[in-house]
């Protein structure tokens, strides 16, 4: 009988998250139905956020769920369901490149593995602020993001502005013949503009 210690539970959780993550990632690129692909993607995001929690990075885990699952994946789902793309024809010929891609992937994998093996066991760096140990992730992040990292923060704001301008430039079309509601005009309308009172003579009607 194996004694169940917290470290075993942690290892178990890691393997469950990792295996499901890899399976889901494979599912994303192999699923025939595009909607399933996106759902696999969401599963992958959930599992990677689980891995982040195991690492003690709870803020990143939450952001992962909120941003990637809540916004990005749902957006993907909308796109996949709304746009009519024939994925069958898109995929034709994709397998032609698979052998080359596989060879590249194996080479890269071997190199990374050798690197990992060579440097395994070397001392990790201990250069983080001791203060951080006593805070939660969010607190630690908040204490530097507007001071030490103000530059990166401001630039990312600028990038968002740029993305907004870009999206508008590339998609906005001014259509002619659209009847727009003019609230000012509506409110300023008086009785005289809106109706006229006529005397209708008997037997004649109105022109």
């Amino acid at each position: 009988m194996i004694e169940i210690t917290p470290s075993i539970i942690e290892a178990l959780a890691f393997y469950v998250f990792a295996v499901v993550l890899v399976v889901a990632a494979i599912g994303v690129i192999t699923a025939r139905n595009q909607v399933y692909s996106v759902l696999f993607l969401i599963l992958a995001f959930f599992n990677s956020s689980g891995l982040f929690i195991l690492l003690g990075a709870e803020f990143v885990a939450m952001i992962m769920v909120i941003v990637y699952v809540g916004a990005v994946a749902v957006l993907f789902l909308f796109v996949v369901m709304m746009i009519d793309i024939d994925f069958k024809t898109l995929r034709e010929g994709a397998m032609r490149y698979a052998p080359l891609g596989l060879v590249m992937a194996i080479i890269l994998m071997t190199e990374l593995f050798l690197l990992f093996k060579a440097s395994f066991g070397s001392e990790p760096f201990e250069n983080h602020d001791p203060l951080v140990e006593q805070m939660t992730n969010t607190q630690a992040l908040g204490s530097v993001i507007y001071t030490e990292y103000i530059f990166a923060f401001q630039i990312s704001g600028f990038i968002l502005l740029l993305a907004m301008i870009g999206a508008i430039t590339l998609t906005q079309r001014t259509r002619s013949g659209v009847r727009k509601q003019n609230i000012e005009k509506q409110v300023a309308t008086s009785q005289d503009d809106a109706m006229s009172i006529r005397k209708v003579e008997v037997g004649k009607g109105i022109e």
Partner: protein
Amino acid sequence: MDSIYTFSALQPIWPELFMAFMVLGLLLIGVFKGHQSTRLLTFLAIGGLLFVAFLLLQTPTSKEPLLHGKIVIDLFAVNMKLIFITALIASYLLSIKYLYDTGFVKFEYPVLIMMAGIGMFFMVSSHHMLATYMALELQAFSLYILAAFNRDSLKSAEAGIKYFILGAVSSGFILFGVSLLYGFTGHLNYSEMADVVSGLTGPERTGAVFGMMFVLSGVAFKIAAVPFHMWIPDVYEGAPIPVTAFFALVSKLAAIALLFRLLLGPFETLVADWQIAIAFLSVMSMTWAAFAGLVQNNLKRLMAYSSIGNIGYALLGIVTLTSQGFSATLFYLILYMVMTAGVFGVLLCMQRDGVVLRHLEDLAGMSKNHPVLAYAMAILMFSMSALPPFSGFFGKLVIFQEVIAQELYMLAVIGVVSSVIATYYYLRVVKVMFFDEPDMPYTGGFGPFRSFVITASVLFAVFYILFPDSLMPFTQRTVNDLLPHGVEPIELIKSSIEAEQGSLPSFQELMKNAFPVER
């Protein structure tokens, strides 16, 4: 409290701050006045850039990083920014008439170019991997949008998507490399990273080299050096011509400036490793561009291959590992930038009834119909193919001088041979203009600003021979400012070879012995 965020404490970044506020101001004017205000916005932007140049000249330079070590405003950064401003103004001048002629005038155009400008400014100033990445993305995002700017054209949309996807891949490369570097050094700040990297040995050093190679691959994407060049012909072809001109003028120069900062900053002690990588990129770019350019019929694609080849020659300067070599690279790119401005000016003039012509055969008869334009183009093409007495000759001269001085004979031979092959496609342009069956004249006029850019470019190409020493001291000063502790990179490699005696013949030796020369 003594804050570092007071207005006067931020003086070194006033130029960038001013540009950022200018972007917001231009955007507001554009929103209220509509698309027809593009001309006004362009002139405001040019005026603003001149003011930025004035501010830059006042900027106190120092090696001390600012904003918690994120950026550094040194002489190198300021000089590079002055060059960028020239190129930004040139691309504004080139584009204005085209936007109105082809009817896709939008006020966002000058704003987006200014945004890209801010990104480039921070790229050359960055002193921290996070700042580098943010600045790179700010610049790249503007370029993606600009590539797809003519959204009604299928080609333009394709160019935008292609550029975006491959740009994202290259960002992925850079980020992966940075994460490895962070893992093996524990720092993101350039100077701290450099300190740690110089002390690394064994597998940890290999890890850092691995990270560096990924970062370099990402940067090679941005400068479109072979084998990371596949996006550039399609993007050049698909993007509207003024946007292509903008890409050719500045975006590569900014990436090369970033490369300088990385190679002489955090990677200074890994010099033996990056020298081979850069030499590989350089040789591949030179030869590939020389052969692939031969079969191009589209002038924009031709310019794309020309730019790949020229990046190859420019990288040769870096391979020499001397400050003279780095300075030659910068010098070469500046000369190339001036010539490209002229060539794109001519390409923009090629319109018939509002349709922009972009094929080689459309040049036919230019010498009959528009002799001045044809002679300008001929001079620029001669200059591009490095025929003396034009300016392009001096660019290649200083590069090969330095390569020979460092006894990298093999590289010099490859460079000269591919340069001779590339001459064919420049001269073919001249041949079509002067000797082929004439076609109808162009319509639409040249416009004063475009003529100004072409004239300036041609005058520079022709009269540079009278002042051959005017630019080199400037580039040399700029590069010297960047040298780590004033040490030439070649000294670093010598000391590292002495440290591990006779393990492998150095790259220098290999290149020398590959092509034996009796002295």
